[in-house]
C-alpha cells in the first residue's frame, strides 16, 4: 500500500532520458508479444490450411512437395462422396450425436438440478462419484459393459453408445451443475412461494435462465460424440453400415491410400461441421471450458 502511494513521486523523479528509454522498451515489448501472438495463431492454423490446400489439388500434385495447388479441383469434395458412402456415415454420426445429446440433456438437467438446488444426504458423495466417472478412462469399465450388450444382442449397432446418455452422462451433469450454481437460489425460492413445485420451478424458472449453459452442455456433448472413436470402434467396428464418420474417415485413408487429396478432402468434410458450430457459438465454448477448470 505504501509502495503504491509513493508511485507518483518516483515517476516524477525519473530523468527524461530514462523515461524515453522506458517508453521505447514498452513499445518494443508490445511489438514482440504481438508478433509472437500472431505467429502462434498462424502456426496453429497451418495444419488446417494444408489440409484444405491439399484437398483441392490434383491427386498427383498431392504426392509432391508443393504446397500451393496449381489447379483448384473443388470437385474433389464431390468425388469423396462417390468413393465412399459418406452420406450414410454422416447420417450415422448425426444419429449418434443428436440422439445422445438429447438424451444427455433429458437426464442430466434434473440430475444437475438435484445436485445444485436440492439438499440431501449423500449429495456430495454422489457428486464426487460423478466426477470420478467423468475422469476415469472408459477402458476401465469396458469389459463387463461389452459383455452386457453382447448378451442383449445389440453389438454392431449404435444402441450401446446412445442408451447410456439417457440415464447418466457424467460430464453433462458436472457441467450443468456448475452452470446452475451461478443462478441464485432466491429465484427458485420465489417461484416456490408463488406456488410452484420443484419440477415447475426447474422447468419454468431455472431452465429459461440457464439456457446459455444448457446450450454449451449440448454442444460439448455433441462434440464429444461426434469426435468419439473408441466407442464406435468397439461396438460398430464389425458392422460398416452403422459406422459414424470418425471411423469411416480413418479407414478411408486405407482404401484410397495413394489419393492424399481425397483423404484430405474427407478430413476437411468431417472437421467442417464442428468448426461452423464453433464460429456460431464461441462464447459458450469458452465459458464452458473455464467452468470445467478448477477455479483457484
Amino acid at each position, binding site marked *: 500500500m505504501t509502495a*503504491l502511494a509513493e508511485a507518483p513521486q*518516483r515517476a516524477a523523479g525519473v530523468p527524461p532520458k530514462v523515461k524515453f528509454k522506458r517508453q521505447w522498451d514498452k513499445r518494443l515489448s*508490445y511489438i514482440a*508479444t*504481438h508478433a509472437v*501472438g500472431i505467429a*502462434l*495463431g498462424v502456426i*496453429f492454423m*497451418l*495444419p*488446417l490450411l*494444408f489440409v484444405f490446400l491439399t484437398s483441392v489439388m490434383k491427386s498427383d500434385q498431392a504426392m509432391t*512437395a508443393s*504446397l500451393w495447388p496449381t489447379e483448384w479441383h473443388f470437385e474433389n469434395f464431390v468425388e469423396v462422396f462417390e468413393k465412399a458412402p459418406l452420406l450414410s456415415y454422416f447420417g450415422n454420426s448425426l444419429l449418434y450425436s443428436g440422439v445422445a445429446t438429447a438424451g444427455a440433456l433429458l437426464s*442430466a438437467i434434473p*440430475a444437475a438440478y*438435484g445436485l445444485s438446488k*436440492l439438499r*440431501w444426504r449423500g449429495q456430495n458423495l*454422489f457428486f464426487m462419484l460423478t*466426477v470420478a466417472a467423468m*475422469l476415469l*478412462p472408459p*477402458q*476401465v*469399465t*469396458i*469389459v*463387463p459393459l*461389452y*459383455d*452386457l450388450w*453382447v448378451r442383449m444382442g445389440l453389438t454392431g449397432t449404435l444402441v450401446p453408445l446412445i442408451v447410456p446418455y439417457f*440415464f*447418466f452422462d457424467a460430464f453433462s451433469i458436472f457441467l450443468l451443475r456448475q452452470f446452475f450454481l451461478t443462478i441464485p437460489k432466491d429465484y427458485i425460492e420465489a417461484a416456490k412461494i408463488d406456488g410452484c413445485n*420443484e*419440477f415447475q420451478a*426447474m422447468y419454468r424458472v431455472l431452465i429459461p435462465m440457464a439456457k446459455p449453459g444448457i446450450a454449451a452442455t449440448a454442444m460439448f456433448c455433441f462434440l464429444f460424440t*461426434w*469426435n468419439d472413436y*473408441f466407442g464406435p470402434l*468397439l461396438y460398430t*467396428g*464389425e458392422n460398416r453400415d452403422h459406422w459414424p464418420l*470418425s*471411423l469411416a*474417415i*480413418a*479407414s478411408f*485413408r*486405407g*482404401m484410397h491410400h495413394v489419393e*492424399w487429396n481425397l483423404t484430405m478432402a474427407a478430413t476437411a468434410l468431417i*472437421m467442417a461441421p464442428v468448426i461452423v*458450430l464453433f464460429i456460431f457459438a464461441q462464447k459458450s465454448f*469458452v465459458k464452458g471450458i473455464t467452468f470445467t*477448470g*478448477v477455479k*483457484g
Partner: protein
Amino acid sequence: MTTLVEKVSPSVPAKARAGARRAKRRRTVFFFMAPAFLGFLIFFGYPLIATVYYSFTRYDLINAPVFIGFDNYVRMFTTEPLVGTAAYNTLWLVVILTVCRVVFSLGVASVISRLKSGVGLVRTLCYLPTLAPPAAATLAFVFVFNPEFGPVNRFLRLVGIDGGLWFNSPEMSKPALTLLALWGSGELMIIILAALLDVPTEQYEAAELDGAGPIRRFWHVTLPSISPVLLFGVVNSIIYALQFFTQAIVAASASAGTADVAGNSKLIGAPQNSTLTYPIWLYVQGFRYFNMGYAAAMAVLLFIVSAAFTWILVRQLRKSQHQEEGA
C-alpha cells in the same frame, strides 16, 4: 425449525408434520435423481466391480467364465512381453506429454494474456484445432509430417535441417504424437488463460515498484496465484495420457497406409510397437483376441493408477468448492 412449528401450531403433532415433509422431500429428490442413480449403477458402478471379478477368470464371451485366480496378473507381469511395451509407451506419454502440454499451454496462455489487442482472435485460432475430431486431426498430421512430401519436412529442408521420419520411425513416432496432442491442447490454454487474467493487477504493480523484473514477477506473483490451475492441468494431462488411444491407433495404420483400422490388428502399434499404448493393447486383448479376463486384469491396473490421480483432482475440486461456499 421444529421449535418454531411447535410454537405456531401446538395442536398438530410436530414430529408427524416434519416427517411428512421429509418424506415428500425424499420423494422429490428421488424423482430428480432416479435416472442418474440408475444409470450410474448400471453403466459405471456395476461394470467397475464386475471388471475385478472378470480379471480373475478366463473368458471369451462364448463359454462361461472360468475362475483362474491370479493367472492373468501373473501372465501380465511375467510372460507376456507386449504389455510391458504398451505400459512403457503409456508411461512415456504420461511423463513427456504431461510436461510438454502444461509448459506449452502456460507459454501460449501467457503470451495471449499480454496482448493488448486481438486477444479474442488469437485465442480462437489457438483453440480451434482442439475441436477437430481426433481421427481427422491424426490423418492431417500424418500428412503434414509425411517424411517425403509433408510440409514440415519441406520447411525443415529449406533451413537445412534433415527432418526425421516422424510417424514412420519408432524413435520419432511418440514425439510426433506429442506434437499432435499439443496442437489440440487449446482447452488447457483457455483454462490457464482465464486463471492468468484473474491474477490481481495490483500485485504485479506492487512487485514492479519493489523492483522485480518480469522473470521474478512471473515466479513470485503469477505462479503462486495460478498453482491450483496448474495442478489441475498436470493431473488432467496425466489422465489424458493414460487413456491415449485414438490418435495412436489411427496414426499407426494411416502412416503404414494399408487396410482399415477396425479390421486389421496387425498394424496396431506400428512402427515396431512404438505407438502401442496400454489402452490399445487392452482393446486388442479383449476385443480382437477375446481374452476378456486378461483385458479386465489390465483394466484393473489402469483403474488403480488413474484412480490415484482422479482422487487428487476430486480433492482439489472439493477444496475450491469449499472456498466458493465460504466466500
